């Protein structure tokens, strides 16, 4: 079977896969947005990790 030929299974599950793709994209956008909001919030402090200050 050719690798380029679409399996019938993929056509059948197209709606489901598209929906899942949209959910994953939305998830990435949410995490990105939350990260930006948290980092920009007034109370945000960069964690003090040992060994990162060159000593």
């Amino acid at each position, binding site marked *: 079977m050719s690798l380029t030929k679409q399996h019938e299974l993929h056509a059948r599950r197209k*709606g489901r896969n598209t*929906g*899942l793709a949209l959910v994953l994209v939305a998830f990435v956008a*949410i995490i990105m947005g*939350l990260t930006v*909001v948290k980092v920009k*919030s007034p109370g945000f402090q960069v964690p003090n990790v040992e060994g990162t200050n060159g000593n």
Partner: protein
Amino acid sequence: MSDASFESKPIENEAQFGDFFALLKPRVMTLVVFTAFVGLLAAPTAVHPFVGFCAILFIALGGGASGALNMWYDADIDAVMKRTAKRPIPAGKVTREEAFAFGLTLSVFACVFLGLATNWLAGGLLAFTIFFYVVIYTMWLKRSTPQNIVIGGAAGAFPPMIGWAAATGEISTASVLMFCLTFMWTPPHFWALALFMRSDYDDAGVPMLTVTHGRPSTRRHILGYTVLLAALAIALGFTQVGGWVYLSVAIVLNALFLKGAFDIYRRDEDMSEADNFAVERKFFKLSLLYLFAHFGAILIEAGLDKFGVAL
């Protein structure tokens, strides 16, 4: 490697994206979203709009996940009842195992991300709500006590409290009273429905008050819960989320609701059947407006407060 599992279901019965969405009980989710939104906005602490949006989203997903777990456990009941026979599991579109995995994964995801986005009290309250609905209500008490509606109502009452906790990181008198409002509203709302709708819970073996204690007892229960509900609803008006708008709405609606409950209490089955349960139907419709208007009034109070309008 075999791909025989690809063909394990009839093609026309294969689950689509919408079937997994249906597992989340989207209609129930609308009430969860609305009340959680009110709890979040009524809280005295301001929340960044995007964090607020994420909090509501994760609360809704947690509520939906508990719905999926409820469908996993109740698949046998759902298959028997006409109202639920077309749900994804009894319809053969989603297997019980798939629903369980979906519900459990989404539950963990929703609680963890609510905790990370807001605070761990909110995440913990959401986890407790899911545990309460799935384990205490669905798996334990639903099939063993006619007070199942009361207990199930508690799970639906948590969202405003979670919304409040997401904003403030605390539980307060106001958030507890918002919980009590939905908690005490649920029994009269559902028992009024049970009086005029022939329920098929009997066929499924689920004890309902109308059957186990009789319809006159159900009428007394409606009145009793409505009296307690009215007291709690008015008390909420004297907390930090209350005000003249809320109190005006609460006084009018509770007077009407009490009158409706008293009318139901005074009637017997002959009277009800003579007018096709007109009073019970009217009470049920009023109950929908009742909850929406109370939370809507809290939202208006929050809006007035944010814009510095004092009434």
